[in-house]
């Protein structure tokens, strides 16, 4: 759509700008303040320069948390995207079952995150939980509070449970925008199932898939509440992701300098990756 040049449009944007700036600029400046200075309370600050940044960037603890975070985000994207596409492709497209499927599938998305954690904690308890009890009675030794592998599998499975529906709903939206004629034409041409997917369905899903991957990347990179409630970051530090580590440092140990420096690095990493996604997406949209 060709847009008219109109500088007065700024007035329409102003309320949003003020509200978001209030919430974004002031706290961000607080973080910047703490990141470059040392404070002993009483509003006295001493310039520290980049000491905290160097400290964080060199610490094994940060590296480990970052690696865990990247591994986690990579794993859930690798599972949720194909699974989401698969479910969306097989979902009914017409009739009364569509609403039933959509409502049931969207349900996990609207459960408060700590309830998701608590629910999976209850579900996975080795002795009395549905999952834990079933696995153990099948002869599989499973205890997510003690075994790192079990803790990881449970955390990943929880995220798959929680968020795959987002990918499903997005892909479904893309698929339902394909006119029936396309399928009929493909049928007449004798196209295989794979050819239909590759040349009709996948191109239509490209844009929504970019949104899905962007949203899933952002949210999984910031994940805090669910794994915190489920495992508390344990056993040991094996499921301590970036946000959990940050909160531990900031509110647990009250090391404000390193915590603030870590916050900024963390934010920049998210921003950088999202910027790449966003640029790709906008380029697609302009085409």
């Amino acid at each position, binding site marked *: 759509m060709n*847009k*008219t040049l*109109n500088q007065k*449009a*700024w007035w*329409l*944007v102003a*309320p949003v*700008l003020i*509200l*978001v700036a209030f*919430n*974004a600029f002031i*706290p961000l400046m*607080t*973080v910047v303040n703490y990141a470059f200075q040392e404070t002993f309370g009483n509003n006295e600050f001493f310039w520290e320069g980049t000491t905290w940044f160097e400290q964080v960037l060199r610490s094994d603890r940060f590296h480990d948390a970052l690696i865990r975070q990247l591994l986690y985000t990579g794993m859930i994207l690798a599972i949720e995207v194909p699974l989401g596409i698969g479910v969306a492709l*097989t*979902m009914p497209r*017409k009739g009364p079952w569509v609403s039933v*499927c*959509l409502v*049931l*599938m*969207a*349900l996990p998305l*609207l*459960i*408060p*995150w*700590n309830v998701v954690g*608590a*629910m999976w904690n*209850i*579900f996975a308890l080795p002795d*009395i939980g*549905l999952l834990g009890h079933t696995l153990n009675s099948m002869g599989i030794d499973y205890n997510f509070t003690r075994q790192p592998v079990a803790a990881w599998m449970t955390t990943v499975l929880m995220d798959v*449970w929680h968020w*795959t529906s987002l990918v*499903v*709903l*997005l892909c479904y*939206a*893309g698929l339902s925008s394909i006119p029936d004629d396309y399928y009929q034409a493909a049928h007449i041409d004798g196209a295989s199932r794979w050819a239909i997917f590759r040349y009709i369905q996948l191109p239509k899903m490209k*844009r*929504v898939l970019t949104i899905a991957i962007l949203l899933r990347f*952002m949210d999984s990179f*910031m994940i*805090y509440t669910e794994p915190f*409630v489920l495992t508390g970051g344990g056993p040991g530090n094996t499921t301590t992701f*970036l*946000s*959990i580590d*940050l*909160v531990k440092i*900031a*509110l647990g140990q009250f090391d404000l300098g390193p915590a603030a420096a870590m916050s900024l690095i*963390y934010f920049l990493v*998210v*921003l950088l990756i999202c910027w790449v996604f*966003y640029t790709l997406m906008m380029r697609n949209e302009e085409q």
Partner: protein
Amino acid sequence: MTHPRKWLIPTLYILFLMLPIYGLLAMSFKTTGEILGGFSFFPQQFTLANYKVIFTDPTWYNGYINSIIYVVLNTVISVTVALPAAYAFSRYRFLGDKHLFFWLLTNRMAPPAVFALPFFQLYSAIGLFDTHIAVALAHCLFNIPLTVWILEGFMSGVPKELDETAYLDGYSFPRFFIRIFIPTIAAGIGVAMFFCFMYSWVELLLAKTLTSVDAKPIAATMTRTASSSGYELGLLAAAGSLTIIPGAIVIYFVRNYIAKGFALGRV
């Protein structure tokens, strides 16, 4: 569509989604003794005692009321300010529009953990700590950008001729916007409200940091119970089960638009 195997994947997927929810529901109807006594698929001594505690103890049911108050406040604020902004982004070019749009989105990318402590200091300093409006305003950080994004998507789907015809017919901007434009994108507004509700309802970290007693959300009440009184799993399960209901009601209302909404109106 009639292929029998086609039903298998969605059915299995939905079954997988329902199992943990069933586990929670089943536990909420059990007595503490039964829960700790061992695993049972169905509640053996069916009890409503856990729910009775929640509906009679003010520290419990006030949690739900607090959560609903700030979620509604946030939804109203976000959609009201996002409507004109989304219109501006979808219809006009102006100085710095693209940069502004991306900057708005960066706020959706800010990890709440980064902002928890500064938010606490900011809202304490302006005297709003432990109020509903504080949580509602704080959630605007990520809800306004998302709302603008969704509404802009829906508005871009409305042909510009609609605006031009209305202006030719002598409509002023506010009158056109309220009388003609808003009804046209009603579905988009519904979807945007759904998303505001969803993200504000499920968020805990900021809501917990900004409240202590008067505006404490249900989610925070649950974490307290989980840690302080040990193994009150039945009560926790009942409280958790009840938090699913508002979401289920909201989904039911927007079920026909939900797929399009998740695509941010861009299909």
